Every structure is written in structure tokens, then in C-alpha cells.
């Protein structure tokens, strides 16, 4: 910005007509902050609640039914925060994956020439998009998952997955000498890069194409397997076992996914997938007919024209609003409080708040956490947008 522009805008701001409203706004805002702070101090004193963030170090005194890290009542509130945060990230991560896969499948189905398929997917989208998410979560939790078979009559799929009213059970994978698998994967990634480089060179020089994708998958499996044999990597499965205690059946061991987690995951994935499906459909439709005609006229068949022309352009239109949906999914994971899934909101803004009464600090921390996640995702989106923008004059 030139100096003269800076000077002009500075002068403009200090013109009376412009200066007074701005000053007023600032003044009122600052006044409001002071007002709130003063009241808060008075009120907290009256209730004998100290302020400050020291409470984070004190013992929480409450347990949580689902946590990725070791935790119980003897750990601190700070640790409770971490548990909540990890649970939020966990359900968000898997929710995003499922929603994306479902969304793309449904979105492409909407464009299918098969009328049955396209109408069915349209029905799916209209149904799940128009129902409140909280209602869907309640429905999954109170209706679907409650009606799963009881523990002693569990549904066992492929000797691998145990389904009953208490949750889903997977066998726990216990590795020994796991590092060798890591080495194997690292080595595979290295060879895959080499493969890509070599195959590009080959294509440039002779026009032959190698099946890079299939070869990569092969390599990704090959080297970890070889190295796990060499390094004597051991794998034990610890499947959940049915135990009877005073007439009550329980599965113990293995990995347990509680119904709270499952209900939230299913509802979030289904709900968000409808929006992603619409984005995918809009993205693919946005590619003008002319592009597809040009591809056809150059002799491309349907799958090549999709791969080289339609999808690269469609992704540019699909990804920004889809990233927005990911953001919504993370924020919507806070609905967990409705069914007792211990995510950040219910553990911290819910239980911890009622235990300590430190509403201001806790709400502040929770809001800042979500805000940071939002800003982080927005930053990535902006970076991506700049990178893939069509280069123009």
C-alpha cells in the first residue's frame, strides 16, 4: 500500500463523521466488558468460587465410561479435558471418513442413469437432511441400539465382531516388535515414490502406462509383511470373552465401542453425508456440457473423460463446501451431551462445570478449543483454494 493511500485512509478515519461512530462502538464494547467483569467478580465472590485456572490441576472425582487414555476420578480436571478432547477428535475423525465415503457414493448415485438408484438416493438425501440431528441421535441411541440383542444372545459376525445391546466388540490387536511394521511401511512408501517417478518417465518416453495404483497397494502390503517375518513380529488377538457374574452376562476384554459412541457416529455420518452428497452432485453437474463434449470429440470414453476431465474440475467445486461440512461435523459432535458420550462438551462444559462451578473459565476453554479447531480447518481450506485455483490473467 502506498504511503499516500495510508495517509488518506488515516485521515478518512479521523474525519468527525467517521470517527465518532467507531469511537462509540469501541467505547461501548469496552464498557460492556468492564461491566461483565465487575459483575462476575461480585457474583463469584458471593458464591465463594475462586477464579483462575488452578482447578485444572485438582482431582476431578468423576469417572468416564469411554476414554482413549487412562483416566479415572483420581486424575486431574486437566486430564479430563484431554479425555474429552480426544473423544471429540475420535468421533469426528471416523465421522468424517464415513460421511465422505457415503457422501460420494450417494452423490454419484444421484447422477446415475438407473432411475431406481437415483430416486432412491434422492429419497435418502431428502429424508436424512430434513430431520434435526439431535432427533437422529436420539433415534439411534434410544431406539435402534436399545433394540440390539441382549448380551447372552449377541450377534457374532464372522467370528470377529460381536454386537449386542451393550455395544460393539472387536478383538484387541496386541503386537510385539511392532517397530518392524513401521519400518516396512516406511520402506514401502519409499519404493512407491520411486515407482511413481519411474512410471512417469516411462510414460513420457514411450507412452506405456504401468498400473501404478495396483502396484502401490501391492508394495504397501509386501514390505511390511516381509519385515514382520524378519523381525519376528507377533500378533495376538484378544477377543472379548463372555463372563457370567451373579447371573449377569458381560463381555470382558477386547475393544469395546459403547452405544453412545456408535449412536453419535452413525447419526453424524448419515446426516453429514447428505450434505456432502449434494455437494458432489453439484460439483459434477457444474462441469459444463461443453467440457464433456470436447472430451468425447477427442475420442475419450466415459471412464477416461471422468478421470481426466470431469473429476479434476469437479473436485475444485466439491472440496470447499465439503470442508465446511467437516467443520460442521466437528461442531455437531458436541451433541454428544444429549446421550452421555464423554466428548469435550459433556465432560468439560457439562460434568466438570457442574462439579466446580467455574462456568466462565470452563466455557472459555471449551469455546477457545472449538474455535481453534475451526480456524485450523479454515486455514487448510484457504491454502487448498489458493493452490488449486485456475490460473487466469
Amino acid at each position, binding site marked *: 500500500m502506498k504511503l499516500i493511500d495510508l495517509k488518506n485512509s488515516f485521515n478518512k478515519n479521523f474525519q468527525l463523521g467517521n470517527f465518532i461512530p467507531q469511537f462509540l462502538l469501541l467505547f461501548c464494547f469496552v464498557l460492556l466488558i468492564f461491566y461483565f467483569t465487575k459483575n462476575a467478580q461480585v457474583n463469584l465472590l458471593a458464591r465463594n468460587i475462586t477464579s483462575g485456572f488452578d482447578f485444572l490441576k485438582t482431582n476431578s472425582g468423576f469417572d468416564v465410561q469411554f476414554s482413549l487414555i487412562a483416566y479415572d476420578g483420581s486424575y486431574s480436571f486437566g486430564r479430563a479435558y484431554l479425555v474429552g478432547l480426544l473423544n471429540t477428535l475420535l468421533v469426528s475423525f471416523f465421522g468424517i471418513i464415513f460421511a465422505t465415503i457415503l457422501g460420494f457414493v450417494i452423490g454419484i448415485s444421484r447422477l446415475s442413469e438407473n432411475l431406481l438408484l437415483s430416486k432412491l438416493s434422492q429419497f435418502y438425501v431428502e429424508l436424512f437432511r430434513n430431520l434435526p440431528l439431535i432427533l437422529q441421535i436420539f433415534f439411534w441411541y434410544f431406539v435402534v441400539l436399545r433394540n440390539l440383542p441382549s448380551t447372552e444372545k449377541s450377534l457374532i459376525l464372522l467370528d470377529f465382531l460381536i454386537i449386542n445391546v451393550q455395544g460393539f466388540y472387536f478383538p484387541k490387536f496386541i503386537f510385539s516388535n511392532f517397530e518392524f511394521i513401521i519400518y516396512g511401511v516406511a520402506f514401502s512408501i519409499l519404493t512407491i515414490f520411486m515407482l511413481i517417478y519411474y512410471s512417469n518417465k516411462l510414460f513420457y518416453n514411450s507412452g506405456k502406462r504401468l498400473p501404478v495404483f495396483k502396484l502401490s497397494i501391492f508394495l504397501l502390503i509386501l514390505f511390511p509383511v516381509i519385515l514382520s517375518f524378519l523381525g519376528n513380529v507377533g500378533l495376538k488377538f484378544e477377543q472379548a470373552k463372555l463372563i457370567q457374574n451373579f447371573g449377569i452376562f458381560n463381555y470382558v476384554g477386547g475393544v469395546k465401542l459403547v452405544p453412545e459412541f456408535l449412536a453419535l457416529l452413525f447419526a453424524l455420518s448419515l446426516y453429514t453425508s447428505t450434505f456432502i452428497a449434494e455437494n458432489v452432485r453439484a460439483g459434477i453437474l457444474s462441469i459444463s456440457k461443453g467440457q464433456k463434449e*470436447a472430451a468425447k470429440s477427442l475420442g475419450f470414453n466415459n471412464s477416461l473423460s471422468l478421470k481426466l476431465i470431469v473429476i479434476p*474440475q469437479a473436485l475444485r467445486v466439491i472440496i470447499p463446501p465439503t470442508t465446511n461440512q467437516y467443520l460442521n461435523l466437528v461442531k455437531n459432535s458436541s451433541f454428544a451431551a444429549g446421550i452421555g458420550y464423554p466428548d469435550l462438551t459433556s465432560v468439560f462444559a457439562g460434568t466438570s462445570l457442574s462439579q466446580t462451578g467455574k462456568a466462565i473459565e470452563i466455557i472459555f476453554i471449551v469455546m477457545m478449543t472449538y474455535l481453534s479447531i475451526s480456524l485450523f480447518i479454515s486455514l487448510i481450506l484457504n491454502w487448498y483454494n489458493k493452490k488449486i485455483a485456475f490460473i487466469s490473467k
Partner: protein
Amino acid sequence: MNKQKVIELLKVNKWYDDFHVLKDIDLSVYQGEKIIVCGPSGSGKSTLIRCINRLEEHQEGLVKVHDHVLDHKTKNIEKIRGDVGMVFQQFNLFPHLSIIDNCTLSPSWVRKMAKKDAEELAMQYLTKVKIADQALKFPGQLSGGQQQRAAIARALCMEPKIMLFDEPTSALDPEMIKEVLDVMTDLAKAGMTMIVVSHEMAFAKEVADRVIFMDEGRIVEEKPTQEFFSNPENERTKLFLSQIL
């Protein structure tokens, strides 16, 4: 002169739902011929040439290109399309690829040419259309005239034996029309079989062997160029010519 018949349309009829857009079209095109198709909008000119590379499907009649019959039973329609190049009114360059990538995409993926060779070929044609210096730029960075010339080069890279042009200069600013027409004239002089839908009558007079006038889905008049302009028979043709000349 026993030239090979490269395109044949016999009693071709097409409907869009109930709208009869092509009515009993009979047309034969011989190798090396340059044909201009003109007529008022909605007369079916674009639909006609789109039927030749099967971007549109006709319901009745025979369409034959290089002795291949085009109908719903045709296999390898892509291969046949590779021999017929098309240039569109809206250019339809692929915005996410550079100009040279636009040109090499099809030869390398469809004809499985080595990318190296495809690039050489592309530079050849880009030079012919006089935009070799824009090869690494992206379509959004080029003017309309440059984009259309790039589109012509892209079609030529498939080394087609027939070139179809669907109102190639209608979307261009006046000062850029000439550069595109010059390229098309060079192409014509080099012996390419061309069917051009256009209103550029000066170009028609200079380049075309035959001019076809279409109205309301029918070929109303079809004559060698000189005769068409000096001695139109049909009333509608005369009306049309009086409006545009």
C-alpha cells in the same frame, strides 16, 4: 475425379422429444471438400454436424463416416471420433491443464503415444496456428482468439481426416475473428475435409466448395459456392442472404 465419399447422410431424421429438428437430411461429403452450412438460428445446423461425430444421436436414417455406420450398435465410437475433429463455439479448452497439455492429453491417453512424441506433435500444430509461445500458459490467460486457435490445434493433434467447426467465431470479439479464420483458411488450403457452420460469408466465398442453407430442419438449398451466392433459387435463401450480406 473419383474422390472417396467420406461422409454420407441418408434420410436422417431427429427429434428432441416432439420437436422435429432434422427432417430428411441427405448429404454426401467427399474427401478434401470444404462445406459451409448456414441458416437462421434453430434451423438445426449444429445438430446436423453433431450427428456426424455422434455427439447427438439420430432416430431415423443412415449416418456413415469413412464407411463406418453410426448407430446405437456401433462399437468403438471413440476410435471413429478420433478421426473426426471438432471445434466448438465456446472453445471448451480444459481449464485445469496448460495449452500443451490440452493438446497432448488425447494422443497420449487414447492413442497411447509417448508423451515426448505427443509434445513434439503438439508444438508442431501450435506453431501452425501461431501460438507456440503460449504453450505453457493456461486457457484462462489467453484471449478468445488465442483460445480458439489452441482448440483447433488440440483437435488437429489427433490427426483427423475430417474437421467439423460449430460456429467457431461466433463467440469472439470482432478483432479476433480474422486470426481464427486465417488458420482455418490455411487448413483448407492444405487439403483438409471441412464442414463449417458459420455466418462468415466472406470466408465461405474464399474457401468453400459447396454452401448449404438450412431452415427449420431441412436442407433448403445446396449449391457450389459461386452459384449459391450469385444465383440462389429458393425464396428463403434469398431472404437470408439479403439479411446478412
